[in-house]
């Protein structure tokens, strides 16, 4: 390496490459280990000056349409190799690269060019759901917000904007909808038909649509509105818009409104608006006076002139009910848990719960409290950091085992919700757990024959394990009460 560097300076005619390409070639050659300096450039005055500054000026007159190749290298071999590499680089075909598409990063970009009708579905973390939903509204599209954790004032703002834009916000915390036959989130495979549901409750809508299906009546749409829509704060904004949309929908002949207990003033306002619509609207909003979704379905069937069928059930082979048995309702569906408490309370008195009918009945965090207890395992507080119990049964199975270990005399009442999004075969985990617990058990099995899990296959498996199984949660609850009554005798 003690030798002084050798140099090559030449001019070529009839060769052209643009300056970007030539700068690229210069860098490529300059990166070779034996090469010290390099200029590969058209022989413009500027480039000649640069080359001269590096001691690489060509001899004789250069013209701007000539290619200047000037370099210094450690030795002759390196120099020759470098000059050859310049030739190779100048004739190399550029890699055309792989074609790539850039996926949309926002709902707004995703909706750009989407086929209409289009619907946005958002299940990103709550703090970020609002911007995505606002994109959909701005694009004139309805949106289903599965995310929870959206502040109520943001829900109100979104729903006001949606109303102004003539679109619907389903949610936040909306888990269930069926739109033009497409099941979104947790929804069952039900036949299509004349009944439109407006649902502030997911499992309530599933119960109602499945019973209608069992009676041979289909739904036009199930429009979820989010559990808070009928609260004082939200004032039924989406419910009113959903009612108006169904009123204008030729496929919808009757509407059933499904909800947990609503704020009375909001319920009155909704009722007033509903009375002014051309489509008949019946309310199945739960209350102590109207505690029973099945009864609401039966009344609707009466409106339609359809006979009420015998709701599907399996008798089971229940273990003997011990004296003094209490009710232990372990639910995945919040509305079904509410319905159970409303139906059972007159017979049993106070029922403690993590989602109690009255605040003083709050269980707090003690899910193993003794006495009559109904737990909603789907409550937000119990789903932090884990999947919904309709997907992940772990927490509920632990509670069943714990109940059996405790020795407290009890009748176990469960809901099992089938359909899209739910556990593909809930009996697989539940049957051994029930067998091992050996408790008298009643199951409200919400689903249809057409569901991926198949109602009767699940019912047979659960009955085989000893459970009494009912398609109606109200019927299941009453059966559980009758078992407790028998135990008292």
């Amino acid at each position, binding site marked *: 390496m003690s030798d002084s560097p050798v140099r090559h300076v030449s001019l070529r005619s009839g060769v052209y490459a643009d300056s*970007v390409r030539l*700068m*690229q070639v210069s860098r490529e050659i*300059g990166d070779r280990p034996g090469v010290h300096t390099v200029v590969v450039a058209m022989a413009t005055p*500027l*480039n000649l*000056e*640069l080359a001269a*500054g*590096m001691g690489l000026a060509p001899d004789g007159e250069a013209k701007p349409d000539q290619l200047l190749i000037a370099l210094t290298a450690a030795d002759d071999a390196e120099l020759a190799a470098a000059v050859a590499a310049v030739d190779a680089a100048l004739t190399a075909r550029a890699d*055309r*690269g*792989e*074609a*790539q*598409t*850039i*996926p*949309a*990063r*926002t709902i707004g*970009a*995703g*909706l*750009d060019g*989407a*086929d*209409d*009708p*289009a*619907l*946005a*579905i*958002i*299940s*990103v973390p709550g*703090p*970020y759901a*609002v*911007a*995505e939903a606002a994109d*959909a509204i701005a694009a*004139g*599209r*309805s949106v289903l917000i*599965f995310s929870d954790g959206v502040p109520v004032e*943001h829900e109100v703002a979104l729903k006001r*904007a949606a109303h102004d834009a003539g*679109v*619907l916000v389903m949610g936040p915390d909306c888990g269930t909808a069926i*739109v*033009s*036959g*497409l*099941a979104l*989130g947790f929804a069952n495979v039900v036949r299509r038909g004349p009944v439109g549901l407006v649902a502030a409750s997911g499992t309530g809508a599933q119960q109602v649509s499945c019973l209608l299906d069992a009676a041979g009546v289909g739904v036009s749409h199930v429009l979820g509105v989010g559990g808070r829509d009928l609260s004082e704060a939200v004032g039924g904004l989406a419910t009113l818009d959903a009612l108006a949309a169904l009123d204008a*929908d030729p*496929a*919808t002949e009757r509407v059933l409104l499904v909800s947990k207990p609503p704020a009375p003033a909001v319920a009155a306002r909704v009722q007033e608006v509903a009375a002014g619509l051309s489509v008949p609207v019946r309310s199945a909003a739960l209350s102590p006076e109207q505690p029973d979704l099945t009864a609401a379905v039966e009344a609707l069937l009466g409106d339609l002139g359809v006979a009420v069928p015998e709701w599907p059930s399996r008798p089971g082979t229940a273990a003997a009910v011990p004296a003094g048995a209490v009710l232990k309702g372990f639910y995945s569906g919040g509305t079904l848990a509410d319905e159970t408490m409303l139906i059972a309370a007159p017979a049993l008195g106070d029922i403690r719960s993590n989602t109690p009918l009255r605040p003083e009945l709050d269980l707090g965090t003690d899910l193993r409290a003794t006495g009559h207890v109904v737990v909603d395992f789907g409550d937000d507080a119990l789903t932090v950091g884990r999947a919904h119990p309709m997907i992940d049964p772990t927490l509920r199975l632990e509670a069943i085992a714990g109940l059996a270990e405790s020795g407290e005399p009890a009748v176990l009442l469960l809901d099992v919700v089938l359909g*899209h999004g739910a556990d593909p075969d809930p009996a697989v985990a539940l049957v051994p757990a029930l067998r091992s617990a050996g408790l008298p058990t009643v199951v409200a099995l919400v689903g249809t024959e057409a569901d991926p899990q198949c109602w009767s296959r699940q019912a047979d498996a659960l009955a085989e394990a000893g459970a009494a199984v009912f398609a109606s949660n109200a019927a299941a609850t009453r059966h559980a009460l009758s078992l407790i009554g028998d135990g008292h005798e």
Partner: protein
Amino acid sequence: MSEPLGGLLSAPPSIVAAGVEVFSTALRQQGASVTDVDWRPPGFGNPDDLTQLALDPRRAAANRVAVERVLAAGSLLVDVRPAREVLDLPDRMLLHSGPPLTWETASGPMRGALIGACVFEGWATDVADAERILAAGEITLDPCHHHRTVGPMAGVTSPSMWMWCLEDPANGGQAWCNLNEGLGKVLRMGAYNDEVLTRLAWMRDVLGPVLQRAVRSRPEPLDVKAILAQMLQMGDEGHNRNRAGSLMALRELSPSIVGVDAPAQDIAEVLRFIGGNEHFYLNLGMPTAKLAMDAARDVPGSTMVTVLSRNGTEFGIQTAGTGDRWFTAPANTPVGLYLGDYGPEDANPDIGDSAIMEAYGVGGFSMAAAPAIVRFVGGTVPDALATTERMYQLTLAENPAMQIPIMGFRGSPTGIDVLQVARTGWLPQINTGMAGRVAGTGQVGAGLVQPPQACFEQALAALAQESRAAS
């Protein structure tokens, strides 16, 4: 009567989903058309700020107003006049690119250009004298942007420099820019040797007067925007590649230049100078973009960027919703290719008002129109397409006047939305020249660069604050 909910109840909808994938899987099993958004948490920004802006009822309409003004703006070349006249630029005042700066904070090429301008104007006898008066604060410095003016690279504009005078017939605006000196050792790149000063004097004494008479003699003003639209169809992107545009400007101006009553050798020298400068058009394109972006100023509630600009030390941005307030942060250094044996260590941080082109939706945003540019960073043609695809997700509109052939003649992505920048985490793409870090060096290369994220973080917070105050 229109169908309820936009036809949602009439046919199964196509689904666009962001978040948990299990829902999309279940929907596909039902035969639905599902587009999964590649959602991720925002690149920056307080979630409360993002939500505040997302829900601001003014935003959609304000952004529409802002971007429609941008799209509507035209650009006519009406005159060529000295800065002293057109800007009322007094002696001992120099304009520069980017957000405000001081001599103390100025980078090498900015100092070089300021020194050169002081000598050129005769305010200093030599370089040392110029440095002395600049350091003593005897020269007032002010951003071009504060004077409806833009300048490439250092952007230093002094009273004796001739300015392109452009007007927007749609909004009535005016914008100005000095004349491009060419490549290599030039004032705007921080060079100030005799060659630079000699050229500036010739531009002052010959080029400017000839261009003034030529422009004034045209039967109709030159439509500068129309040239930009044509360039995008000819392999230019209007920032780092202006070859076709410069030739078209030459073609349009030549008859009038030849018709000027001046010595034949002056006319020949003017034509040779213009024809030899492939960035001649840049100084016409920039005020064209400036006219459009200024038209969108002061639209309360708008989150659209009106200025992207750098002074060699800091990058600064402004938005339509926050007036002339600057949001600044230290400028990044471009990545690219170098002239001669210059290398990365020779390059100064990002400099120049020319990023106004990207604010307008051309330059890096229309990279797909000029695939040659991505080779500055060893990229491929698909990289150029991907860059433009990404920029569509940052912008409010597609400019129907600026079509990109390879994108199916889709309009250029126009009107950067600060909210979209935050949500996607993608920063605007800028194509740029590179000045030497040391004063007096001149150009060392060209390449690609992005603004610092901090500018957008500040703008987002300020927009959210303004939104809260207005609600």
